[in-house]
């Protein structure tokens, strides 16, 4: 004990820190105090701001550690946690760090005891400070100003919760090394001119520029990337608490985005206007339901719905495009000129139409009125897709082994995509329920041709039908 004779046993010591975030200074002093064996309850740590002056001269002069004092020990974990915890705004942090360092001399592994209240607290401080730094990296918003000579200067106003400004200078320097920038805070300011960092006195919000034209683009982006169909305000608030909002240009939009979200979602659903709840469970019920269907504009024309016809358990389902003028008048599929031509070819191929289920991809006749005549119009992709709901219902109920789609519209009604007839005809494609799809031309196509072209196409059509008949025979076995 001879070396420590100048340490008085009951004396109190006060350490005045030059800056609130000066961990290096604290470490020097703490090391000396430990070496002099000064217990934690005899040391007071005073920060520069506030009422530090009351005590600054009240304590004892710090003792000099003896030359042969043992080195102060600290675990790696302690050092990394302490560096951050020292930046916390909690006035008790330096006392806590000293107390832990003191206990660490007796038990170097104390940091592992996570249930120890001191260890818990210091880890909490560390976590708070790391989070604050992380939020600073995220929420600093630079505004650009032009200086004389046209140089660009980027200036940000930020209000950190803890004493983290100086500790994070390196992050912004490494990221924006080639820019001239300043970060202004109530605790102090940082200025980077592209080569060196300068520190300045505390600033006020009014010292920073008040706007930047690019913020309009940023706000537009923020509002557009938000998906109103999924509103999770709680998740947003936990990561972007309200205290940060006042310095975020995009945050002003949040109230109206949230208020409008439910409205926008219901509008989106209504705009899609698809209220297909339950599909009717029988062909008769589908036949009744399609009469009421107004899910696409065709249903709103002056026409009637034309349901498929044929045995409800047919092995072959023949799908056309949509009813024509005569079909619409009679309310039955394939009874007009195209239907008559189809009958001729089916007979030639040896397919019995009465044993097939014959229907259309689109249930209503689409036309434009020209004087007294109603001129056929092809349905759009969207109209066919909308009507898939019905044709799929028929297919589910009839469960054909083979579906023959005639024409591109019918093929789309089955596949959901537009295919080229010439590329896919004459071969089986498998549908998801395991049945086969064969695609051929629509008989009305033959009606529009004449001469050699018609003969050629008719031959192809016959060949397709013949192949279907053969395949049906195979499937029947």
């Amino acid at each position, binding site marked *: 004990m001879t070396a420590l004779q100048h340490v008085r046993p009951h004396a109190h010591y006060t350490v005045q820190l030059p800056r609130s975030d000066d961990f290096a200074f604290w470490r020097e002093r703490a090391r000396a105090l430990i070496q002099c064996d000064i217990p934690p309850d005899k040391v007071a740590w005073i920060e520069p701001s506030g009422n530090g002056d009351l005590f600054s001269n009240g304590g004892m002069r710090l003792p000099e550690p003896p030359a042969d004092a043992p080195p102060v020990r600290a675990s790696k974990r302690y050092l990394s946690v302490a560096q951050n915890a020292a930046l916390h705004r909690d006035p008790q942090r330096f006392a806590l760090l000293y107390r832990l360092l003191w206990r660490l001399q007796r038990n170097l592994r104390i940091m592992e005891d996570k249930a120890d209240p001191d260890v818990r607290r210091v880890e909490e401080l560390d976590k708070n400070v790391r989070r604050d730094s992380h939020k600073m990296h995220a929420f600093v918003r630079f505004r650009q100003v032009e200086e004389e000579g046209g140089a660009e200067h980027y200036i940000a106003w930020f209000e950190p919760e803890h004493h983290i400004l100086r500790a994070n200078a390196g992050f912004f320097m*490494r990221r924006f090394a080639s820019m001239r920038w300043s970060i202004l805070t109530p605790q102090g300011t940082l200025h980077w001119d592209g080569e060196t960092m300068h520190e300045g006195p505390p600033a006020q919000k009014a010292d920073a520029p008040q706007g930047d034209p690019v913020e309009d683009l940023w706000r537009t982006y923020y509002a557009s990337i938000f998906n109103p169909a999924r509103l999770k305000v709680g998740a*947003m608030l936990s*990561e972007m608490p309200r205290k940060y909002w006042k310095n975020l240009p995009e945050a002003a939009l949040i109230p109206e985005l949230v208020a409008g979200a439910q409205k926008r979602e219901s509008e989106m659903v209504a705009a899609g206007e*698809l209220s297909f709840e339950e599909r009717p469970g029988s062909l008769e019920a589908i036949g009744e339901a399609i009469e009421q269907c107004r899910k696409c504009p065709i249903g709103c024309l002056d026409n009637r719905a034309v349901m498929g016809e044929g045995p409800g358990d047919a092995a072959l389902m023949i799908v056309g495009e949509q009813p024509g003028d005569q079909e619409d008048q009679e309310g039955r599929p394939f009874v007009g000129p195209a239907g008559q031509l189809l009958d001729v070819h089916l007979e030639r191929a040896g397919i019995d139409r009465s044993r097939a289920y014959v229907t259309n991809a689109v249930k209503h006749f689409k036309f434009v009125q020209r004087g007294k005549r109603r001129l056929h119009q092809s349905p759009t992709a969207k109209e066919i897709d909308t009507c898939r709901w019905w044709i799929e219902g028929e297919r589910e109920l009839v469960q054909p082994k083979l579906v023959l789609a005639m024409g591109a519209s019918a093929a789309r009604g089955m596949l959901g995509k537009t295919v080229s007839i010439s590329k896919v005809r004459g071969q089986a494609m498998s549908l998801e329920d395991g049945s086969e799809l064969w695609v051929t031309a629509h008989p009305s196509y033959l009606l529009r041709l004449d001469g050699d072209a018609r003969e050629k196409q008719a031959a192809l059509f016959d060949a397709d039908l013949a192949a279907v008949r053969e395949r049906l025979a195979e499937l029947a076995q």
Partner: protein
Amino acid sequence: MSRAPILDRLKILADAAKYDASCASSGTAKRNSTKGGIGSTEGMGICHAYAPDGRCISLLKILLTNHCIFDCHYCINRKSSNVQRARFTPQEVADLTLSFYRRNYIEGLFLSSGIVKSSDHTMEQIVEAARILREEYDFRGYIHLKTIPEADPEIIHRAGFYADRVSINVELPTDAGLTRLAPDKDARQIEGALGKTSSDIVEAKDAKKRFKHAPRFAPAGQSTQMIVGADAASDADIVGRASRLYDSFDLRRVYYSAFSPIPDASAVLPLKRPPLIREHRLYQSDWLMRFYDYRPQEIMQATEADGNLPLDIDPKLAWALKFRERFPVDVNRASREDLLRVPGLGVKAVQRILASRRHRTLRLDDVARLTVSLTKVRPFICTIDWRPTLLTDRADLRSLLAPKQEQLELFAA
């Protein structure tokens, strides 16, 4: 060709990109601009803002164009949709990225695109935007490029040299769903492209070990996304598919996106959106597989009769309630693996318990200090002063532990 103002196009092309869930900017090589250029990546991703949908905004996530020759039913940009169309040039994308980056709004760019002219042409344009950023502006921030599986593998390969991360969406959990809802896409082609990128990444890593100056190739790896609730796939199907994807292609992440109603929707889609919580439960199960050593089969064991995870409780609790014979677990003696199975104990809490018990025999109070909520943990553990004798076997344990149904929080500004 006359163009609308950039503000209007940004509105359309950001709106069109919002259905992609990923916005991660983490896990890439460390870079900074102290020796030139602009930007840095320091390992940890940074979320520069959060939208009211709870999603992080880390990157400028936009489409190069929303014109598309494909007709995928779940997609707002499909050919047959009536949305307003717009496009950016690669130069405009690069300039917009930089002006956002300099103001510290973003970590970088996430560029995707509808398919114009051809897959190759589109992929070229995407790569060109990344090339301008990296080569002309010496941009060192984060770049995520969506690649198009139908494009020439050579062009996709180039994308990997500019990007930190590349991704290809598998879109739907089942092949049947893909055939039905995305008729122009081909599951085999998508998996082929995933496989090719995966082997490119491995090769580049290997080269980097042997040659110091070997170029980096997608240092943040590749990811993919699946849409949940647009087809009939159950959670068990989805978890199974995800685990196969993780295994076969060494993916960093599989993202789930709850199908959300889109304007001008196609008729073959369900109109009802799946509950958002379902997506959350899938992410939780993803977490269990990645960090808690659960095998995919075990997640499937936690599903209910319809193959879906329960919505009212998390999958870990669901699993524990089904396998009550595995509990209670003695926090003073149990292995790390067993502790990780305790509902309410996270990876960090388990680490803390393992470290602390070398110093003391844990009491219930100690556990309370080491965990977030004791109520959740208590029925499944024992300490020196606590045994949940009857609690673990109670029939109504589930209702005791399930979170109370909360009224949707209305916004109070």
